[in-house]
């Protein structure tokens, strides 16, 4: 690229990724017109904020929390209560700003819990977060006036006046509201990583001892980071309230806490955009895969364990592993070996899917005696033949994959060697 061009495209080269993301977000609902996919996109937007806020703890501050949904849920409850207060005409806040109520509510609780739980990181923090999560989840049923008991608290967003004058009835309008907040939150959370507190959160994660000898109290750094993470989780919860117009006790519970951990980890904690990928993938899997197969929990569990064992840096880590190779224009050396690996990986995948589906069909399906169909083929699960094929596919796939992996390693070795030579 010529220098002149570079200057002309300054906006693009520096902010290109952001602009592209914004455009995608704006045009997406035109490709996905059904109510279901728009609802899913809305849920994905909420999940992205939630997962990124979680990564402010796990990725950036090294705090493994088992109770992050406390803030998600509380944010939702604060928002729905404020929404109802607004509906009753006691105060006036436009609908577009209601998620902030969740954020500010959560940040206050976050400061208290943060102070109590972050004196030490590591296991003590993880256990305190687990305990606080259990306590809040249990008390959610004990305080029905705030949590609404089992029924939850519901509201009607149509009764609240909107700043933009839009009637927030249809899903598409809410989608854009969520998209706006998600985009704003992503930008803010990204910028936060560049602030003194953001840098110090990293410092405290890597070496709390040293951080205290440059004047910082690690406890305070963690507390503030924790409270800010709570803020964004609260915003996500607030959007949840506006989107579904109901908030129930399940939102503060262990399930969303576990979900956000999985999203973030699968996406990758080491890179800012990792949790975004994780939120998209996991939400998609939960909503769509569950429609395709009732065995989806097994696939999900296998995916999670697989990521922990083989790709602890997540999807983002795998992608970023290729950054230097891409920059050195050496991808063409890796691609052939990848292409070779795709085929056996597919066979192994096919075999595994068949194995799980057949076992599931026999054991837990509605009618095990009925013929089952998989990939358009109908067969009887009771006969030995499909089992034979399954075992055959798994063995062949596994064997070939071992060899393919060897090839991939080899080409990686070559690429690394070339890059080393070039840099020196």
């Amino acid at each position, binding site marked *: 690229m010529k220098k002149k061009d570079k200057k002309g495209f300054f906006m693009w080269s520096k902010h290109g990724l952001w602009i592209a993301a914004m455009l995608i977000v704006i045009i997406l609902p035109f*490709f996905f017109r059904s109510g279901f996919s728009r609802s899913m996109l809305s849920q994905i937007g909420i999940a992205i904020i939630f997962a990124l806020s979680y990564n402010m703890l796990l990725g950036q501050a090294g705090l493994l929390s088992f109770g992050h949904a406390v803030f998600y849920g509380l944010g939702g409850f604060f928002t729905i209560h404020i929404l109802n207060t607004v509906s009753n005409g006691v105060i006036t806040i436009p609908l577009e700003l209601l998620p902030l109520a969740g954020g500010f509510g959560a940040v206050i609780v976050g400061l208290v819990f943060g102070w109590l739980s972050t004196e030490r990181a590591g296991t003590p923090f993880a256990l305190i977060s687990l305990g606080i999560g259990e306590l809040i989840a249990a008390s959610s049923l004990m305080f029905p006036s705030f949590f609404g008991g089992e*029924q939850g608290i519901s509201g009607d967003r149509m009764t609240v006046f909107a700043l933009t004058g839009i009637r927030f009835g*249809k899903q598409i309008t809410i989608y854009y509201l969520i998209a706006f907040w998600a985009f704003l939150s992503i930008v803010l959370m990204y910028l936060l990583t560049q602030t003194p507190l953001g840098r110090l959160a990293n410092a405290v994660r890597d070496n709390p001892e040293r951080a205290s000898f440059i004047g910082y109290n690690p406890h305070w750094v963690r507390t503030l980071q924790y409270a800010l993470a709570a803020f964004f989780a609260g915003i996500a919860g607030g959007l949840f309230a506006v989107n579904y117009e109901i908030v129930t006790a*399940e*939102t503060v519970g262990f399930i969303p806490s576990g979900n956000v951990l999985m999203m973030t980890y699968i996406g990758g904690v080491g890179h800012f955009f990792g949790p975004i990928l994780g939120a998209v993938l996991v939400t998609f899997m939960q909503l769509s895969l569950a429609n395709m197969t*009732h*065995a989806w929990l097994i696939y999900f569990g296998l995916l999670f364990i697989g990521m922990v064992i083989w790709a602890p840096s997540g999807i983002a880590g795998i992608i970023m592993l290729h950054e230097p190779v891409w*920059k050195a224009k050496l991808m063409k050396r890796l691609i052939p070996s990848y292409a070779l690996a795709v085929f056996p990986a597919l066979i192994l995948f096919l075999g595994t899917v068949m194995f799980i589906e057949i076992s599931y069909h026999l054991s837990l399906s509605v009618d095990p005696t009925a013929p089952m169909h998989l990939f358009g083929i109908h067969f009887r699960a009771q006969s030995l033949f499909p089992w034979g094929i399954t075992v055959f596919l798994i063995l062949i796939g596994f064997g070939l994959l071992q060899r393919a992996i060897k090839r991939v390693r080899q080409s990686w070795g070559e690429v690394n060697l070339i890059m080393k030579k070039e840099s020196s």
Partner: protein
Amino acid sequence: MFKKFVSVLMGVGLLLMMSSGVIAAETVKIGFLDPLSGPFANVGDAGYKHFKYAADMINAQGGDQRFEIVPFDSKLSVSESLIHLKNAIDQGIRFMTHGTGSNISGALIEAISKHNERNPDQQVLYLNYSAVDPALTNEGCSFWHFRFDSHSDMKLAAITDYIKDQKNIKKVYLINQDYVFGHAVRDASIAMLKAKRPDIEIAGDTLHPIGKVKDFSPYIAMIKASGADAVITGNFGSDMSLLVKAGKSAGLNVQYFTFYAGGIGSVPAIGEAGVGHVKQVTEWHNNLWFEENKPDDEKYFMGYNRKYGGEGKAPFFFLRIRTMMEMMDKAIKKAGSADAKNVAYALEGMTHKTPYGTVTMQASDHQLIQPLYISTLSNAGTKTVKYDVENTGFGWKTDKRIEADATAMPTTCKMEKPAR
């Protein structure tokens, strides 16, 4: 450059999410929304099979109206349920049925009411087969909601009607889960017992956290100390099985009046500990056909057990699902179309003959009025207790039948009905 690559990759990932649109056929589709994976999947699974079987049976009669059941996995989550509601509406489904989770039923009523108001061209009906919170047909009632199960106050009225005649019951202990349903059972028990048997002493009244107690022995110790001879509990799942088992282990000799002792998976969990002690209130059990001599019903549910019940491992349980499907069949024919509003008006006030009497869908609150039975867990294989449940060797034996009319309760429902 690399960043651009990443953004493209993200875009492709998003584009992969194609929504699945199924072309609507001539058949009437009923969306079934309940947990189909995770810890409560057994409950949803059983419901789904019942609906499939009921649809099979109606379709087999060969009329021009056919039913198809489309399952959706609620995962017991409100947000996922609401998304699946949208999913179902996309697929042209106008009738949703659901049973597990009062939180979801409340949310569904709200969401469907709002949806029907905002989208008059795609109105949806909510057919409730199992959520028993009285509020749903009282202060929280809706034109778009119909309940085919007797709500908890009706069932409790049946229980207290039975207790009324049991002169040997002098002291009653109330133990319930500490949440809305548990509170409702507790409050209603106190009120109804006072009205029907003022001489009965409430020997104790305990609420315990839901799903957290592993060992009920301490509660049993309290029941024992109170000298109660009957226990009323709205507990379900392990909270109920563990209660009965702990009672047996301490030699507690009381009668348990329960809502859910016959629920799927409960009898195997309770085991012998419950024989002669545990009573349930239901609209059906599998020895009713013998007691009331209805061999047709035996044929019906045995057919289910063969097809979906794994030879009795997960047997027939929900008569009301059969009732619901047959009433829906009638209502759609009566309405002349599968339009939600017309079907709703057709269902209002409809009467229907089940094997065990006539049931009525009340127009005022959309609550089905049906006969209820109090039955006791007994050793099966005897002359009267023919069949056991879930191959346990234990089955149910009727103590008392409460006629449909007697179960009706006054309602506070003020329903807004759309113009016909």
